[in-house]
């Protein structure tokens, strides 16, 4: 039995579509192929260089196609290759990247294409999430109705002022203006406009919610030898983890779920991070409703309990702040649900590769990608660096 340890994993190609409300010009297959082709072009590789494909998306009901990986095999050059389909609710984009990363780390495959997508315009996500199920708590009106009470609980618990949520939305929408792939480009955005937008699920206002997007994100992951041939600087995986906890039980803390804390702790342990606030240069965090930024700042260990909103209020999470959060504009600006987690992971990788363009955080050496899903019960995270991992 060999105990040679894991193969280091490098991200050498990243591709996204321009995310929009409705891509009427392409099929689902056309959409995913566009992102995959861009990732291959970025890595200067061809379909023949890919050993396996790992694809993720959120529920099949969102497009009305059951197990669409079967239909997408041709479009993703997977014929004759292994193809896996991951589905872990909203965290799926991150989980999918981690499954692909494990294939390389385990030396099962050398170069893997991973991709996540959602083409929300083909169906209605609100409907897809609100199917009535006997004997279970209804999700009410989509995800917002489920999460609003937990935001309210956070505000009560921490004493955060009402204004924090709008600060996050205003920041992320401005960051999105620097990201050519972001869905929402609100050139006339002001803090006052965010605060004046209609209340949807108290305390969540319209401008503090994510859009419904069509889009796909792809990455090429490879081993050390593959990284050595990479024409552009690779990003290296320093740590990655998934954690899950039950949906509903008496002990669940919806404001700061234990699974999120444990997942982050595992990633930091793998990456040798002891002080995330100081040692991590940028964070791409899954924030579908603005208040989740301060909540996750605490959950991920960037702030003490009850203190997350103070970082947001002080401008620490701004693009030019001490700890930029969602320099890409985040989920609040772009939300092809199944792809949203992978976009976080990919944007973190872009940052440490120095390839993030106008929304680049200067000299980002270590960045975190974060995703969550279900009833805030599934978490997936990775930490990527500009240098190969030490061991």
């Amino acid at each position, binding site marked *: *039995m*060999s*105990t040679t*340890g*894991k193969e280091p994993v490098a991200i050498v190609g990243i591709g996204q579509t321009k995310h929009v409300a409705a891509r009427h010009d392409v*099929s689902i297959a056309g959409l995913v192929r566009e992102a995959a082709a861009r990732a291959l072009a970025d890595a200067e590789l061809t379909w023949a260089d890919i050993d396996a494909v790992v694809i993720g998306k959120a*529920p*099949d*009901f969102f*497009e*009305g*196609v*059951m*197990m669409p*990986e*079967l*239909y*997408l*095999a*041709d479009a993703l050059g*997977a*014929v*004759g*290759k*292994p*193809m*896996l*389909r*991951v*589905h*872990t*609710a909203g965290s799926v984009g991150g989980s999918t990247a981690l*499954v692909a990363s*494990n*294939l390389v780390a*385990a*030396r*099962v495959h050398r170069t893997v294409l991973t991709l996540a997508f959602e083409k929300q315009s*083909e169906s209605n996500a609100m409907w*897809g*999430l609100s*199917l009535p*199920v006997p*004997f*279970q708590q209804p999700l009410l009106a989509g995800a917002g109705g489920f999460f609003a009470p937990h935001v309210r609980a956070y505000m009560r618990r921490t004493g955060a002022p009402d204004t924090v949520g709008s600060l996050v939305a205003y920041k992320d929408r401005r960051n999105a203006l620097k990201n050519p792939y972001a869905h929402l480009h609100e050139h006339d955005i002001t803090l006052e406009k965010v605060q004046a937008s209609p209340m949807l699920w108290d305390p969540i206002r319209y401008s503090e919610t994510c859009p419904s997007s069509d889009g796909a994100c792809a990455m090429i992951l490879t081993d050390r030898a593959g990284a050595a041939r990479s024409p552009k600087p690779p990003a290296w995986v320093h740590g990655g*983890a*998934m*954690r*899950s*906890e*039950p*949906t*509903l039980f008496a*002990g669940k803390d919806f404001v700061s*779920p*234990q*699974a999120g804390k*444990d997942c982050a702790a595992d990633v930091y342990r793998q990456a040798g991070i002891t002080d995330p606030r100081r040692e991590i240069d940028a964070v791409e965090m899954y924030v579908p409703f603005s208040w989740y930024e301060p909540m996750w700042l605490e959950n991920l260990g960037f702030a003490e309990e009850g203190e997350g909103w103070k970082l947001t209020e002080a401008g620490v999470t701004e693009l030019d702040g001490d700890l930029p959060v969602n320099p890409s504009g985040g989920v609040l600006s772009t939300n092809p649900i199944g792809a949203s987690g992978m976009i976080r992971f990919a944007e973190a990788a872009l940052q440490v590769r120095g390839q993030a363009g106008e929304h680049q955080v200067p000299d980002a050496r270590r960045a975190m990608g974060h995703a969550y899903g279900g009833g805030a*019960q*599934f978490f997936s995270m990775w930490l990527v660096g500009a240098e190969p991992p030490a061991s």
Partner: protein
Amino acid sequence: MPDTTRHAREVAVVAFAQSDHRRRTDELSEVEMVMPVLHQVLAQTGLKAGEIGFTCSGSSDYLAGRAFSFTMTLDGVGAWPPISESHVEMDGAWALYEAWVKIQTGEADTALVYSYGKSSPGSVRDVLTRQLDPYYVAPLWPDSVALAALQAQALIDSGETDEAALAEIGARNRASASSNPYAQLSGAVPQGDYQVAPLRTGDCPPIGDGAAAVILAAGDVARRLCERPAWITGIDHRIEAHSLGLRDLTDSPSTRIAAEHAGVFEGPVDTAELHAPFSSQEVVLRKALGLDGSVSVNPSGGALAANPVMAAGLIRIGEAAARIHRGESDRAVAHATSGPCLQQNLVAVLEGDRA
């Protein structure tokens, strides 16, 4: 000692449990169907859910009729304190593959894999049409039996089989299922009328509900948990083009490639558990895997005796492993399929330590 040097770590199936597969389970939620199976498979090893290194499940929202259906079955695992866990929207055989990869990374020494499907609440023949190309084919609603019949007719036209031979396959599988207490159909089942010619009722799988679970373990942990572990000496899966017009339906190149990578052809096989929901598909798989008359094919009765969609493939791995655990097999091949007409196929080789 089986040769497991193909991969970094020795990994074995050390426990397998399944539900009674039944035509309907109206009185059971998915959680209630899965929980006894989880308890049984854990009891076989003495492990508790919290001691498992990684958990992975396979299921389908479309069968459940709701988005994120797997979130509720996770509650049945008892994921507290939080666990390292993932899910594939595929047959549980692919969940097992993801778990096997996780163990290969060294991040886990044990894994719990489970899958389940309730076909009874809807019309599974219609539901499976939603797997087809959503723009050009799915709107025509060609159902799963009709597509399998196309494949069967292609086999008959090419001289690979005939209706009598197909009937024998159905009869043999149901006869074998007589010794399988979990099977839905067993014994002398009439061949019946045409469902879609040339396939008769006896050539088609029963529609039913069921669940299965497997525990994987690495190296010495496996030896501690199981008297005769079923070592996974090779495992691979491959997919083919989706459009039926692009494929030779009488052949399964993806099965053959997966079998080559899994090492099937590197030694003799005594048992094969094939995920062939239609009798005609057994013909295709036997050819792709090079199985001759010396191999015991589907001693459990296979998918023709019980076909809980999303679990039937994992059950093939479990049944093959259980035969190794019992000393009835030394080197078995297990196969799982997904998609119309054997589009996607997984092949694993399982071996027991030689006495």
